[in-house]
Structures are given as C-alpha cells and as structure tokens.
C-alpha cells in the first residue's frame, strides 16, 4: 500500500466511524484508575498487620461498592493487564507472561478503549494501563496518550535485544541506589532487575514524581470541557518497584513500627513442586533484602508507595468532584495483581496464593451503586469489561470471558455462582470462592485452603479425602482448555517508529 492511499483510507475510516457513532448524550463518563502491584495490604482489605494510611481508598469505599474478594486474572503485569483490557483470559488468548507481545498475537481483538471509541466515546489514557515495556502500548488504541514517566532509568528504553531503543525516559535518581545495596549500584544479580530494585524518599512533590506528572495531565483533562463522553484511564505505577515516593509518605511509617509478614518455616512442605518453584522465582531477591538488613525498610517503602498511590487517587477524586463530570462519571479502581513481601517465602508476584491474586477493587456508578457498600462475593477483574459495557450501554461483546457485575453493584449480596479464576503460566490455575482457594497446577497437583479457618493458607487440604467433594465442585470451573502460549518476543522484530512487528524469518 502506498503511503498516500493509506492516509486516504485512514481518513475515510475515521469519517465513517464518526458518522456511525450512536447518540451518546446519556452515556456516563468513565474514570478508570489502575494501580500496580498493590496487594491486599490497603486498609479496607486488612492484609497488613499494622496500620496502613489509605484514606482515599476509604473514601472510594464510602462512595460505592468495594469488593473485598476481588482477584486478578493473572499474577504478572502483561497477562493480567491484557486480560483486563481485552476481556479475555490468558487461557483464551495464550498471553501468559511478560515475554510475549499481546498485540501481534491478537490483532483482531477489540480492546476496551477501542470498544469505547467505536461506541462514541473519546478515549484518553496515561501512565501504565497495558504493560509498560516497549511494544505493549500501541498508540492507535487511544485518542490521546500520556506516556508513562519512570522515576528510575528503567524500561521505556530498556534495550530489548534486537530492537531499536526508544529515546524516552529519565535518568537514575541522584544517589542511586537509595537503599544502598551494593549489587544494585553495580548492576549485578541478584536482584533480577537492578534497574528497579531500589527504594527511598525523594525530595520531590507529588506532582513532580513520574506518577504525579501523569495525574497532573489527568487533572488538566478533567478541568476542561469535553463534548463527547470520555473514557479516561489513569495508570498509577506505585507501588510497583522502584519504591520511590515523596518523603512525607515514608514519614507515615516509623521504622520501629513496621510489622513483618507472618511466615511459617515449614509452610511449603505441603506445596507441590510447581508451587514451590513459583515461590522460589525471586527468592534470591528476598535473600538479598534480608542479607542487606533491609527487610524492614523494604516493607516501609512498599507501605509508603501504597500511601503515595492513595494520595494521587485522592487528587483524581478531588478534581472529579470539582468538575462538571462529578455526577455522571463511573469510577473504577483496580490493581493488576498483588505482591508478596516474604509470605510463603515468596518475594514479588508470580504465585497463585492470596497475596498475589487478591487486589483492591472499587466501582462507583452514579444511580447504580449504593454508597458505602461492601461486596464479599468472589469476583475477578476479567469482569470489568462486560460490566462497563452494561454500565455505559456499549454494544454487547458475547465473546468476553467475564460476567457483568451489575447484579452485585445493585445488590452486593446477590448470589454469584462462578468463582474467581487466576492463571499463572499455562495450565496453572487458582479458583477462589467465598470460603475456599483451590489451586491446580499443570501436572495435576493441587492445593486447597479453607480461608475461614486458615487465612494465611498454611495448611493444604487437597490430599485429605474429606475434601474431595469440595475440590470436585470447584474443578468444574477450570478452563475447558488452555490456549497454547503465543510466540515470545524473540519471534518478532519490532520497530517502535512505525509500531510494527515483523515475524523473524518472514520475507
């Protein structure tokens, strides 16, 4: 195709799209807030033994429905976010890890922003919505995008073997690494990724931080008039590493009052080998933290990062309340998955236990959600896409894997039969009901925990005959098939200038 033809056709396709957009006067706007690596330590979920300062999450909880048993579709960024944004599970798409590119694998899939746009919305995004590494944020998904700004020299332009290097990013913070770990300073392993393995207070204001600059962009957006209903996605990166925040958030957590997670030495003895391997994935990082005498500081930094993210959420809510859109905007907040800080001997995400799957999740929909309600039913972030379709009157997409949460938004105690499903790599699944967590690995090995009596998931009941019926009842919710993994990044060369992938070996 010649360039001129291409542009002509492109213009035509835009024009026809605008003409076919439905009348959208009554459609609500959407403020879609994502946080990264935030586990259930936030105050309303009570996962942390001490006090956590998340007043704005509490404020969100007062406005609408807060889900106390929400889980992510996967426990690593790319598969989880791809699932949320496409409405399709990893077991449907074959996108299982961060080493795959979702777009060339799923060229015909209509993502959430694309679907909103096709239904008359203007779609705006900022920060981290899809996974943030090179090649996961096609610019054609959005009418406008504010790229993520890192606080450390990581990832926008982290060289991808065989790829160009995009020239956007910022440099190491002064004095890197602030945590003083020598391996990090020298770029040695462990840790697995020294570029982000740091934490500490920065003498910056909220809005000078990378996340803050994105929020500032969103505040500007909310202060302006918009003709069409909008879908505004604001992706906050904290509490993802590096745990840098303005100093005041560290001051909320005095070092002498940090509670370390409860860990049982023999905890993994009753866990099958694949589960033990998952717990081991970043064990070297965890050992490095402990050997460096930085465990308490790391926990403090993670908490500070949660509170910083919470403060940014507060700024978004303030701006929304001040704006013309306060009364007709649906607000969602979700985290892409949880994070272990030593529980079950695991550091990082990448497991199928509660600490990795359980996330904060809120929905406020004017005229739909009763204020200040809690929903204890098991739900999954895969349900977001169909829920927004219902809330915003978008064209139905029956192929999606999730179930609309509308019944629960109207009545948080409504029955819901389907458990939540979380997948980590092909064939490993965790199902969660209100009471049970059932894990089945690709080799058929299992775990079963009774969360009512065992909130730390220390006693695996899967081998006990008395629970055969529970397992059987849950197993019917496992995916009927596990899609083969889509090609890894190594199968393509990617050109960020034109945002195109070429299969290696193709002529």
């Amino acid at each position, binding site marked *: 195709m010649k360039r001129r033809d291409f542009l002509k056709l492109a213009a035509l396709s835009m024009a026809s799209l605008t003409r076919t957009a439905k009348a959208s006067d009554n459609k609500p706007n959407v403020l879609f807030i994502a946080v990264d690596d935030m586990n259930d330590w936030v105050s309303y979920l009570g996962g942390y033994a001490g006090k956590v300062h998340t007043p704005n999450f509490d404020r969100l909880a007062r406005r609408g429905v807060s889900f106390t048993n929400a889980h992510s579709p996967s426990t690593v960024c790319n598969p989880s976010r791809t699932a949320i944004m496409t409405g399709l599970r990893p077991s449907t798409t074959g996108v299982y890890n961060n080493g795959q590119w979702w777009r060339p694998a799923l060229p015909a899939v209509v993502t959430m922003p694309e679907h909103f746009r096709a239904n008359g919305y203007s779609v705006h995004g900022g920060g981290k919505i899809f996974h943030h590494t090179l090649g996961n944020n096609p610019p054609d998904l959005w009418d406008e995008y504010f790229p993520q700004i890192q606080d450390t020299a990581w990832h926008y332009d982290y060289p*991808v*073997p065989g*790829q160009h*290097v995009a020239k956007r990013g910022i440099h190491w913070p002064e004095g890197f690494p602030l945590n003083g770990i020598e391996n990090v*300073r020298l770029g040695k392993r462990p840790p697995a990724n020294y570029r982000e393995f740091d934490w500490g207070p920065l003498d910056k204001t909220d809005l000078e931080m990378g996340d803050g600059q994105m929020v500032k962009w969103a505040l500007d957006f909310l202060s302006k008039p918009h003709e069409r209903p909008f879908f505004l996605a604001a992706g906050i990166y904290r509490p993802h590493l590096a745990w840098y925040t303005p100093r005041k958030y560290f001051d909320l957590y005095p070092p002498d009052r940090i509670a370390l997670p409860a860990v049982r030495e023999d905890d993994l003895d009753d866990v099958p080998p694949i589960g033990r391997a998952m717990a081991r994935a970043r064990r070297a990082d965890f050992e490095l933290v402990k050997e460096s005498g930085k465990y308490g500081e790391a926990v403090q930094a993670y908490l500070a990062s949660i509170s910083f993210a919470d403060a940014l959420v507060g700024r978004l809510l303030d701006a929304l309340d001040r704006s013309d859109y306060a009364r007709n905007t649906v607000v969602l907040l979700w985290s892409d998955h949880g994070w272990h800080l030593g529980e079950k001997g695991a550091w990082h995400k990448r497991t199928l236990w509660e600490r990795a799957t359980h996330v904060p999740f809120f929905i406020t929909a004017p005229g739909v959600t009763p204020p200040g309600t809690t929903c204890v039913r098991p739900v999954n972030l895969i349900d977001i896409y169909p829920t927004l379709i219902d809330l915003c009157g978008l064209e139905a997409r029956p192929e999606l894997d999730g179930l609309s949460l509308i019944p629960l938004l109207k009545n948080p105690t409504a029955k819901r039969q389907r458990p939540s499903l979380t997948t980590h790599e092909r064939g490993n699944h965790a199902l969660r009901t209100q009471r049970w967590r059932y894990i089945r690995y690709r080799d058929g090995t299992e775990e079963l925990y009774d969360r009512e009596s065992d909130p730390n998931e220390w006693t695996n009941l899967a081998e006990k005959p008395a629970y055969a019926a529970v397992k059987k009842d849950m197993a019917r919710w496992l995916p009927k098939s596990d899609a083969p993994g889509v090609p890894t990044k190594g199968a393509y060369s990617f050109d960020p200038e034109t945002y195109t992938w070429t299969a290696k070996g193709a002529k």
Partner: protein
Amino acid sequence: MDCKGSKMNRRDFLRRFGYAAAVPFLPAAGAKLVDIRFNVLFIAVDDLRPTLRCCGDHIALTPNIDRLAARGTLFNRAYCQQAVCNPSRASLMTGRRPDTIKVWDLATHFRKTSPHIVTLPQHFKQHGYHSQCVGKIYHGKKSLQDPPSWSVPEKFNVAVKREQYVLPENRPGQKSGKMAACECADVPDNAYWDGKIADEAIKALEENRDKPFFLAVGLMKPHLPFSCPKKYWDLYDRDRISPPTNPEKPAGAPELALHDWVELRGYNDIPNKGPLPPDKIAELRHGYYACVSYTDAQIGKLLDALDRLDLARDTVIVLWGDHGWHLGEHALWCKNTNFELDTRAPLIVAAPGQRCAGTKTNALVEFVDTYPTLTELCGLLII
C-alpha cells in the same frame, strides 16, 4: 504489509494503523528525552591466549579478568578468524571474515577492498554513541588506522618497539627497534604503555560518563617484547612455571603448517636458528605470564573506574585477545598457525544484570559473532 507475524486482514490493518495515522501519538508534555542506552567498554588484549585463571590456567594470576568473567559469560571455545593480528582485528571490527574483506596479511587495510564498510565502533557512532579508541585496536601501524570508526582522534594506538622499553640498554638509539625479548624494570605501571593506556581510558570514562559511549581500549601486552614492571615478574617463581608440555613438532604435520618464529628471532637475545636454551624458554614463559598479569592489573583499574563512576550498571564489557600464542609448544613460538593454541583466544561478554552471570560455555563461537552480539545487546539495528 506490516505485522507479518500475525493473521491480520485489511480491515484490521486499517482499524489499527488508520487511527495511528489520523491521530498523532502525543508525547508527554515536558517529558525529558535522555538516552539510557548501554555503554560499551571494549577491551582488546594483544596476543593474549587463555592463560587466565578463569580459563583453568593454575599458574596465571589474573584476579581482575576472573572478576570480569564472574560478571558475564566466558567462552571457552572462542576462535579468531585468522591467527594474525591485522586480519583478526579487521575481521572482528568489521564483522566480516578475512575472505570477505580480503585482508589476510599485515599490510592490507580493509577499506582498500571495502571502502564503505561500517565498522563496529562506527555503527555505534552512527547511532549517536561517543566512540573512542585508546590503545591498539586496529593493527599497530599508522597506515592501518581507521579514523571513520571514532568520534575523536585515537590515542596511544601506534607504538614502535623502542617505546615498549624503558631501560636505557634497550633504547640505544633514537630509532632503535627490537632489542631484548624480555625486560624487567622496577617502574610504575604507567612507565610502560599499557599503564598510560589505562590512565587515558579512565580519563575518557570520566569525561564521557553522561552520554552513551563505545570506548575501545587496546592493551599491547602480552605482545613481545615481554616488558613490564618488576612487580608483575615478582608475582611468579620462574622455577614453578612448567616448561612446555608438548615441545615436539606435531607428528606428520606438513612443514607448511609450521614456521620458524621469525617474529621472536628478531630480538637480539634470541639465536637466529635452532631451538632455544632451557633458561631462555623459562625466561620467555615467565615474561609472558608477567605481562598477562600486568594487563590484568590495567583491566582491574578499568573495572574499578566503572564501579566508582556508577557506570557498571549501564555498561556492557567485552574482552578479547586477538589470537592465541605458542610458548614453545609444538616447537613453536608466536602465532600465525592454524593450531589450537594460536586460533583459540579468550572472549568474555558481560552485560549489566546479566542472567547466569559467571557461566562458562563450551559453545563454539567465532570472533565474527562479536559485532552482532554487541549491536543486539545494545538494541541497535543489526546491519
């Protein structure tokens, strides 16, 4: 059509790229544009065979190269393209075999046959890197240098023999050449060239730490003459350095495969023909090990500077010897043959945060692999 790797029909294409064309990607207002590409520290060591502790040589004292190996991958079976300085270096630096660039001798410049070839440092330069040469990277003659490879003029790149001695008896005249094959002088490191090269390279690191750089550092020892400071000779007890394990000519090898080590015989303490006396063999072997430790110490200074300047976490380090060397084995001295000892040379590649740092591999690799490896590591287009 784009996106060949996926099943995409025309409408999908328009849906995706039509928007891209119609709606420009808005960059962040005020987003700073800064390069954080990997730098490259590219260390060439002249005539270095794998007489390194990390390569299993238990005589060698090479703590710094061992430390580099612990950061990266050590290739146990890396082979040069031709065991002669100019062709080996021209080949590695252009990423082409000697037969492709038609450089097989010590006189031909690769630009003569391939005038527009883009060398490895030139490729980095064209991608915005500061590319600089300190020491011997191309073969050490003025006519074989390659200014297009570098952003700034080379330093310490061509040394005549006289400059490789410090003792007066080895510098009898203004234009004196090869004198003794070995020299031991109680002088500081930078009395000899490799010490000066290390100092200059550290200066280059300090000056260029804020931009992506490709710094090539070419150390001249353990090339003959084996001249280095006394403290490196003192590291070894000559009696404990074993004589060559296989000093006989290979049985049945044609004469063409061998040579009479003309390079060594040019030194004034070496007989013009015939075998060497045992004490000369011991002295030469001692000298080679001493010079290896001397270069190792200079490499240590570079590694320390990277750590001190907080550059280690952004810098890929490569170390290679241009070919191997015979120290009396096979009744041979010097290089030039196609035997194992001449064609196998050290190769270490260390990338920041590398997985499996400290591994040694027996995978068979060639020096022409260096060019694409570095470009891929640094995310440059492979040409």
